[in-house]
């Protein structure tokens, strides 16, 4: 196991733990106002300090992790749930009109500047976590469809698939029973990368006010709130920013590490 994989796994699970922990325990109530103690820098009582309403930043970061992870995770889920079957279908019917339609549709979504469309969607249908999830999720679909199709195509040439066909299994069954398990590694790695991109996208959307709405804490909106106060309370901007960096860095390292670890050919080449 590489250092990347270990560091990535440690950072990612740290954030995940904080998010899960926030369901049962936070140092303070994340929404509790405490005006007399507002804008405190990090100290023994408030590890990450307090914001302009005196809310505990540590608690807000913990609950914010929940928001980020939930949005990014569901968006990856949408991408996989729709993209993987599309990719499997396209590969099973290689060269057919169905394959053509699926792949051209993919190219089309790829060609869209995702951020602009995400902003359009959330602006028209209203800001909120659900619409942010949909906006991010749509752009995950072609990613998974393409990677699934690419890997599945080479598998369809293999002998064990031929054996399955000879034994009378249909394309759908072969896809589900033989192709899917063999592309799972690839999907896990890509899922990790899309997860980290989703965290960044969610932060961006909620920074411009189109993500999760108050009082749900989200890292992006904490940064937007901090913007006017950055000169006298820099910790308000530093801490949510570092939280995003740690999460994204962790997931990227995890993705890279998993790819190397799951692919024995690379493992040999890198050694």
């Amino acid at each position, binding site marked *: 196991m590489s250092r990347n994989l270990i560091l990535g796994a440690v950072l990612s699970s740290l954030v995940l733990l904080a998010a899960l922990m926030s369901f049962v325990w936070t140092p303070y109530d994340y929404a509790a106002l405490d005006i007399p103690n507002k804008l405190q820098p990090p100290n023994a009582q408030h590890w990450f300090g307090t914001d302009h309403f005196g809310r505990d930043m540590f608690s807000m970061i913990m609950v914010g992790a929940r928001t980020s992870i939930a949005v990014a995770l569901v968006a990856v889920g949408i991408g996989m749930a729709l993209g993987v079957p599309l990719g499997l279908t396209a590969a099973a019917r290689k060269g057919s009109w169905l394959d053509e339609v699926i792949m*051209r549709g993919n*190219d*089309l979504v790829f*060609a*869209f*500047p995702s*951020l*602009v*469309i995400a*902003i*359009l*969607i959330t*602006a*028209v*249908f209203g800001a909120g976590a659900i619409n942010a999830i949909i906006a991010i999720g749509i752009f995950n679909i072609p990613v998974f469809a393409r990677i699934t199709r690419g890997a599945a195509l080479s598998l369809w040439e293999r002998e064990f698939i031929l054996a399955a066909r000879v034994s009378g299994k249909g394309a759908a069954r072969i896809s589900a029973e033989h192709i899917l398990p063999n592309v799972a590694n690839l999907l896990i790695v890509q899922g990790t990368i899309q997860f*980290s991109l989703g965290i*960044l996208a969610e*932060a*961006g959307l909620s*920074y*411009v006010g189109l993500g999760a709405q108050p009082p749900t804490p989200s890292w992006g909106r904490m*940064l937007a709130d*901090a*913007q006017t106060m*950055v*000169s006298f309370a*820099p910790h308000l*901007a*530093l801490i*949510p*920013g570092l939280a*995003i*960096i740690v999460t*994204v*860095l962790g997931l*990227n*390292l995890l993705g890279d590490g998993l790819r190397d670890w799951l692919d024995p050919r690379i493992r040999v080449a890198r050694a």
Partner: protein
Amino acid sequence: MLRYALKRLISLFISLVVASVVIFAVIEVAPGDPASFMLGVNAQEDTLAALRAELGLDGSKIQRYFNWVSGMLVGDFGTSYTYRTPVSQMIADRMWVSLPLALYALTLSTLIAFPAGIYAAARRGKPGDLTVMGATQLGIAVPNFWFAMMLVLIFAIKLRWFSAGGFAGWDKGVWTGLHSLTLPAIALALPQAAILARVMRSSLLDILGEDFMRTARAKGLSRRQALWRHGVRNALIPVLTIIGLQFSFLLAGSIIIEQVFYLPGLGRLVFQAISARDLIVVESVVMLLVFAVITVNFLVDLAYAGVDPRLRGRS
């Protein structure tokens, strides 16, 4: 080559048509009637009808779609609901901020990424390579709007080298204009530079393993000479593709960065239009950005196929 170009041109056309239909449809289902938004809740029904007719909101959906598209083809993007000025004029004004910003960021990103990528590849596996690679991992993980805030904190608030936001305008001179775009351009360029440096490195590493590199060394070139004359040149092809793709990314990415620096570019225009429910502006700016992105990608594909014939057969 001609057949390939034609094929790509047709798919470019289809992409643009589908994009325009999608954008139109999304805006169509948007709740709220612009006319009643503009005139308020106490407006008379006949006044509303008159305004709708004036804004071109009274025809059938299909008719309105064709009016919108045919207008754009001749540069008529309609009239803003809130400002009552031609949208094309508003876009042209804002373009003078967004476009230079994207170009500036692209230049910076390239200037950072090239040396970093080449340096890392030349020192593969050594501490220098690991440092650059670590830095790029970090660069990819940093949200650019947060990095922008940190730049403001350090260089505008603490050191007072730059203003914290706003745009001085080009009429005060090119340097004044560039000066106010510097921090936004750096913020925009950093994550892109990180990606580009990684592409540069891996592309160069691929080339360094080629036989002709060994030949170059064998005929007596030093490591450095071989690297620059044969390595970097050949490694540039995939790197240039990424640069092309990044341009459209930077143009779209400037939407959020403009918010941080209060720059009067296309991005701010979109957000102002969204909050004023000035949907014709939103619709047209989004279409323009999509058009720019799709067209740039098309040109990059074409240029790439021109350089590398192997790609023409692949669709």
